[in-house]
């Protein structure tokens, strides 16, 4: 492990994050709401710190030896880079005096980068707009991934970049769209940018101003969930806006490689993709069931409203966005159970969504069936397949390991949170909402509440959970395995 080299790259990442603060700074200057000063200061501090790290270690002996990033270094860079970005991102909130404590700043910042969307802000509309823009921008950067962004723009990361890419991109087997990793990263960002532009345009047509349209686009495409209003998307009370956001949340929950192939002129490939089919099936069946439940349960007077609110909530939770237009805690029990299940599942592999991913759940189900099949035909030789592709055993055991760690860490986090004095339902819901990158949970952290009232210890644990969930456990947890540090 070449620590100096790792720190050098992290320095570059931090500087990159600092440079993106130019966008909220511009809004701050435009609105003259007092956010320009803290943003400019944070930007300078971040860039200078990053540059110092980068230049201090760039010419060290170990960096020169070879610029190929090893598997271990890749994970260390990504995991530590994310925490560094989280602290850097919290700086504007701290300097701007939005929060008193460090933990709140880091919580809000990492909730943004990890596209969770859980907030410790009680009055969103009181925060200066430049800082609100930064808050939403962290979503957008974290959605496709700050590492993927760096791979696309930093030329020196090209060699061995696959290690970094694998450590950040969600899903058991990341696709490589182009022969070169740099081009793959660039392509993904282009697709992301294209959909974001489309959604912004559609929201502008729906009557939002540019600021709100951009912030909500960031929240949607990254499956984040930060809004600029206290009442979230419900504040607009427009069926058009609800449906636009619903559709784009679903788009963001689908594998971006599939979007790329579709945009290249082969949209039918998507329909044949087994993961997409499971995703589409779940969305449809859940929307139908929940719609019937809320309509017959008397939550809404007419079918149109039932469909509108159901589709939005189901899409929001399944893709782990976390926007809300209705308080689903008032809905019938069955619908809450379904939404709870959705929280575990999450989006597709290679999407910006969180959760365990449709792909993994599908593989786990298929493998369980496989076991039953083996009991019936003891001599059979069979493989788990997704479509026509055979899933190798090491991938499957990776998925099992992931599943166990995910559940284990989720439960562990819930224990710790409840130990700080929070009630059981809220502890479990908050941990699930954070490790699944969803945002709102149920109980004390439901769609109408926020995380501000939790004790500091609980917030630190939940912050850690968000990064665990976003980087899909392994990349982060590996830092805590002693074997990782052995020479």
């Amino acid at each position, binding site marked *: 492990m070449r620590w100096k080299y790792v720190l050098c790259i992290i320095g570059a990442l931090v500087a990159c994050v600092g440079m993106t603060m130019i966008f909220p700074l511009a809004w701050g200057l435009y609105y003259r709401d007092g956010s320009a000063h803290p943003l400019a200061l944070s930007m300078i501090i971040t860039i200078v710190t990053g540059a110092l790290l980068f230049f201090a270690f760039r010419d060290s002996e170990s960096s020169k030896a070879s610029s190929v990033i090893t598997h271990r270094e890749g994970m260390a860079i990504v995991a530590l880079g994310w925490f560094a970005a989280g602290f850097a991102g919290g700086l504007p909130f701290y300097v701007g005096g939005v929060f008193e404590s460090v933990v709140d700043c880091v919580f809000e910042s990492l909730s943004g980068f990890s596209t969770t969307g859980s907030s410790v802000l009680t009055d969103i509309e009181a925060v200066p707009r430049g800082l609100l823009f930064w808050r939403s921008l962290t979503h957008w950067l974290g959605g496709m991934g700050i590492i993927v962004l760096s791979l696309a723009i930093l030329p020196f990361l090209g060699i061995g970049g696959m290690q970094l890419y694998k450590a950040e991109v969600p899903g058991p087997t990341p696709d490589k769209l182009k022969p070169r990793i740099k081009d793959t990263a660039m392509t993904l960002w282009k697709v992301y940018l294209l959909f974001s532009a489309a959604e912004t345009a559609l929201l502008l047509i729906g009557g939002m101003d540019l600021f709100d349209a951009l912030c909500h686009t960031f929240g949607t495409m990254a499956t984040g969930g930060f809004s600029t209003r206290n009442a979230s998307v419900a504040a607009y009370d427009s069926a058009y806006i609800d449906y636009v956001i619903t559709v784009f949340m679903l788009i963001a929950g689908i594998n971006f490689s599939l979007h790329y192939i579709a945009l290249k002129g082969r949209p039918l490939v998507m329909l044949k993709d087994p993961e997409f089919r499971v995703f589409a099936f779940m969305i449809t069946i859940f929307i139908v069931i929940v719609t019937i439940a809320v309509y017959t349960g008397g939550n809404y007077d007419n079918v149109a409203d039932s469909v509108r609110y159901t589709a939005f909530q189901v899409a929001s939770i399944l893709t782990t966005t976390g926007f809300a237009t209705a308080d689903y805690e008032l809905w019938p029990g069955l619908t809450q159970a379904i939404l709870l299940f959705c929280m575990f599942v999450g989006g597709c592999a290679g999407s910006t969504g969180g959760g365990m991913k449709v792909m993994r759940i599908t593989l786990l189900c298929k493998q369980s069936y496989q076991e039953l099949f083996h009991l019936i*035909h*003891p*001599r059979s*030789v069979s*493989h788990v397949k997704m479509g026509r592709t*055979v899933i190798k055993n090491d991938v499957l055991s990776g998925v099992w390991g992931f599943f166990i760690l995910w559940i284990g860490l989720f439960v562990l986090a819930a224990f710790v949170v409840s130990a700080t004095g929070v009630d059981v339902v809220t502890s479990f819901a908050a941990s699930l909402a954070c490790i699944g990158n969803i945002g709102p949970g149920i109980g004390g952290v439901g769609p109408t509440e926020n995380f501000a009232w939790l004790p500091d210890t609980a917030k630190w644990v939940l912050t850690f959970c968000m990064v665990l969930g976003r980087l899909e456990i392994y990349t982060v947890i590996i830092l805590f395995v002693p074997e990782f540090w052995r020479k």
Partner: protein
Amino acid sequence: MRVIIIGAGEVGFHISQRLAVENKEVVVIDTSDEALRKVAETSDVQTLQGSGSSPRMLEDAGIMEADILLAVTDSDEINLLACFFADMLNDKITKLARVRGERYTNYKHLLTGEGANITKIINPDEEVVNSVLRLMSVPGAVEINEFAGGKIRLIGIHLPENSPILGSKLIHLRSKIGEDLGIVIAAIVRDDQLIIPSGLDVIKKDDVVYFVCDIRDQEEILERLGISSEPVREVMIIGGGNIGFKLAKALDNKYYHTRLLENRQERCEYLSEHLDRPIVLMGDSTDQEILREENVHDMDMVIAVTGDEETNILSCLLAKSLGAKSTVTRVNNFGYMPLIQPIGIDYVVCPRLSAINSLLHFIRRGRIMSSVSIKGEAAEALETVILEDSPIVGKMVKDLDFPRGCLVLCFQRGEDVLIPRGDTLVKPNDRLIIISTRQNIPKVEKVLTTKVEFF
């Protein structure tokens, strides 16, 4: 006509024998002295020892004057190479290659296209798979062959004891089963002897009857012959080699419940990776335990297609004794053919026989479209198109100068399938299906051959 055959294996041996009987000039090339001696002893052919893929050998065999090159060694590469060289030496020659490897057969269009110019790629495995699939489509049939692009079928079948046509003369056949259906009895196999029947022959108990019909009438005819057939759905394939895999792939759909038994671990992995629905089982086909575990007694058909014919025969017998409804056995060695029925195996498929059939199709003179051997090699059914200038155009069927033991089975005129009477006129562009005993084939060909080709 000169025919060069490369490879004196089972296929080369039989083809050369057949062609020599039909008075063709045959040159056989093989590297094995032993194999060549066997060919030379049994038939009137020239033999050359050496590698068929060498241009020098091809020249020695008289490639410049030859009309047809058959490359039928066991090696795909040698067969292809021989065809490539033959094409360079004499671009007019008809080149037939036996190719089995999937890595080549998937690119048939390249091999038969510009550049390679191979006239036809013959893949015996594929034809075996097709014949098994045909057998599955008519449960109870002994043999099924197709003509006119699949529109006409020649079906050989055991008649049940309650069949209404038992004991009746063939001239009364149509009145027994209905005038509206076109059916012609092409041959009867009785006590292992093949008879090309006349109208006065009587159908007896235990006969195997070969009849020709339009595929659209097939089900109706089978029903009226008193053959009740349950469709085949539960299938067990023994042997996951080339043929077993292709067969399982063809049955890889919702309709069939297929199990594929294979005893090599690595091959099982491959099969399971490349098949979707069929259940791949690892084990020995002669292990009663596994056959019982997989409910062999519920199987509609057990198909043994391993490379080892003794294993195939024994596993089929075992499956049968455990209660399987019917069994198909792959046999390579013609020597075992007479054994099959007495020991109780229902059907036989033979890649070599399939290869011979396909090869013969191309060698026939005139415009013969396809020909198949029936009952081993006792008789042959030919499909031919009548040209404008054919000597038989305008003649009535009864006036045709065909030898005895030869029968015009049916006509295809445009879209219609006609069952000929004595006074049916032969018109240009008719497709005729003719059955003939093996020794009469040259005479039939002579009658059919267009005048032009004599010069």
